[in-house]
């Protein structure tokens, strides 16, 4: 980080000195402007290489952490360098596009760094039963199966059930009805908001009323089902927070790729013309 600050100060002084004296004003194509441009692009390329580095994590070419810190600080340094290169002007179509892309990329990067600093804590405290995001559908299927099995111990539906909770037949049917009406639809579509259980705050109430409704031997099963619903809610929360944590990358990464590609074209074409 220190390197970045020092480099920034030096470049700032050089730029101010140059901008004041250049006859045509600061230009990207003058010697100093080109130097700034090349340095800025090199830093952008290095920042972009972080993505490539992540593809070969085992290669011992520097710890991922070092690369990440370099990415952030040197990437930030590229901001003033490119501004110096362009003389704080937007100019033609390609360069204007590049400047916009550049600002959005840097801006999204700063926002993303902040997000990734604060949001993991939210996730950790807010989702105690967190699992792996990509496997959430798979886990949800397993939760459904578990709930079905629990329900089967009461309503005796499945043939491979080994223990049957000891209650009256009509209680069994009542439970079965409740399960099919309220619990199963929620488990199939936790985010659709179809049943009362979809509201996390109301889950406790719903199950309380179920406990009053059904006989006491069923209560352990209800406890477990409530726990399953609680886990479902937490998984939904995890999905939401995960999206916060990663959505900014949808802006940052594609635009930075476009920026690097178009930047390269710009370098070639600007020198041509």
């Amino acid at each position, binding site marked *: 980080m220190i390197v970045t600050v020092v480099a920034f100060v030096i470049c700032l002084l050089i730029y101010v000195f140059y901008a004041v*004296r*250049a*006859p*045509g*004003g600061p*230009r990207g194509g003058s010697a100093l402007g080109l130097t700034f441009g090349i340095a800025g692009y090199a830093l952008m390329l290095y920042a972009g290489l972080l993505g490539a580095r992540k593809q070969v994590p085992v290669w011992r070419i520097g710890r991922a952490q070092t690369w990440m810190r370099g990415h952030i600080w040197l990437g930030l340094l590229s901001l003033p360098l490119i501004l110096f290169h362009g003389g704080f*002007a937007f*100019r*033609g*179509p*390609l*360069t204007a*596009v590049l400047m916009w892309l550049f600002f959005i990329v840097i801006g999204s990067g700063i926002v993303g760094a902040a997000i990734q600093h604060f949001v993991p804590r939210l996730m950790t405290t807010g989702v105690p*039963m967190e*699992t*792996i*995001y*990509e*496997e959430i559908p*798979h*886990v949800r299927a*397993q939760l459904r199966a*578990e709930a079905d099995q*629990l329900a089967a111990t009461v309503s005796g539906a499945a043939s491979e059930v080994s223990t049957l909770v000891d209650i009256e037949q009509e209680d069994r049917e009542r439970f079965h009805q409740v399960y099919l009406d309220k619990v199963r639809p929620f488990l199939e579509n936790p985010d659709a908001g179809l049943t009362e259980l979809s509201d996390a705050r109301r889950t406790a109430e719903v199950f309380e009323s179920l406990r009053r409704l059904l006989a006491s031997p069923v209560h*352990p*099963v209800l*406890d*477990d089902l409530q*726990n*399953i619903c609680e886990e479902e809610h937490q998984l939904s929360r995890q999905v939401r927070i995960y*999206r916060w944590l*990663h*959505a900014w*990358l*949808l802006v940052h*990464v*594609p*635009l930075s*790729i*476009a920026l690097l*590609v*178009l930047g390269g*074209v*710009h370098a070639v*074409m*600007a*020198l*041509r*013309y």
Partner: protein
Amino acid sequence: MAGRTRTTKRLAQRIDLDYFKTLRGIPRWRRMLSVAFAAAGLAWLGWHGLRGSPAPYNAGPVARSHALFGNKCAICHVSTAGFEKTVSDRACLACHDGPIHHAEQAFSPACSDCHVEHKGVLRMAATSDRACAQCHADLAAKDKNSPPRFIADISDFDNNHPEFAPLRSGQKDPGTIKFNHQVHLKEGLRSPKGPTTLKCDYCHQSSGSSNRALMSPIDYEKHCALCHSLQFDRRFTEAAPHKEPKVVYEFVSKKLTEYIAAHPDQIHTVDEPDKRLPARPVPPIPRNAQEWIEQRMTDAQLLLWRKACKECHQLSYPNGPDSLPVVAKAAITARWLPHAAFDHEAHQLVACNSCHSRANTSKETSDVLIPGIQVCRQCHRSDANAAEARCFECHTYHDWSKEKRVNAGYTVHSLAE
């Protein structure tokens, strides 16, 4: 929480080992969008490239004067070496001539160093001060003459421009015509047409209607003769011509000769001494026409040389006091600022004596009455709310006296389609 237990093994076994190998959700979109955006960018550039148009690489709108062919990049961006299409001086010189500033300059900047295109719809000729300052801010290094003929450190008008040369170091107006501006600008001057108040533009007018025309030279017939006529004898209303003394002498002589020939009875008269001249002994009565003419000639010469002409001119008698005088050259400065072009037409809105304020109180010919740089700086500053103060407003880089015509040969069709 009766039956459900969370153990590491049970949690871990819920997970498929290969989950990270397929991209889903956000990472998948990330990859797709990366490809899409890059492809879109390249497609945009490629589309223009295929049409042969370098429009995306345009660095900004062109100047007003080039707007006609602003989208025909190839007119200026001519290929110099294969791929490269940087604009060289040759492209500019195809239509414009840019004569050299002067031959001894240390280096000649390229056209585009000072005349920057693609900066928007403005005047190309409006170069920035820094273009000039690259030499003039440190002239000693840049001028091969040593010492340089000009102030060595000029970089802008506001702060770093010397006082105008005529006003520096006590220089004086070299003109030899004695003139007192203050007297002439009084109100109610006596004139043959009654009391008159002279305005500046009675004598000082622009020589033409083109920009930066000089003031017309002062002319005796137009500006002075009405009040200051050259009467030489009471018998004649005609004035002597405002020419060299010899011509005047012959004119007067001729006139007197013709008169006495027409009025021979006046030969033996003696004039009353002219009170305007210094007293002198009464001359004897002329005996003949010849003597009469001689006496009258002497009177006339006295009146002219010693009074009328001397009123304004400086006369000298290199061949003795009784010979014809030699009149010093008027030496009225036609152009006070040889290196800057001042345009009085553009300044019509300003009253003459607002800038030339010293004229109201000037009594001596030697007073230099052009305004100093401070007067100019009151309006011409580098403010937004001030008049143009950049170098080009008064000075030019190119020596237009050496301008050559250029014929690029473009047809209307090729430019205007």
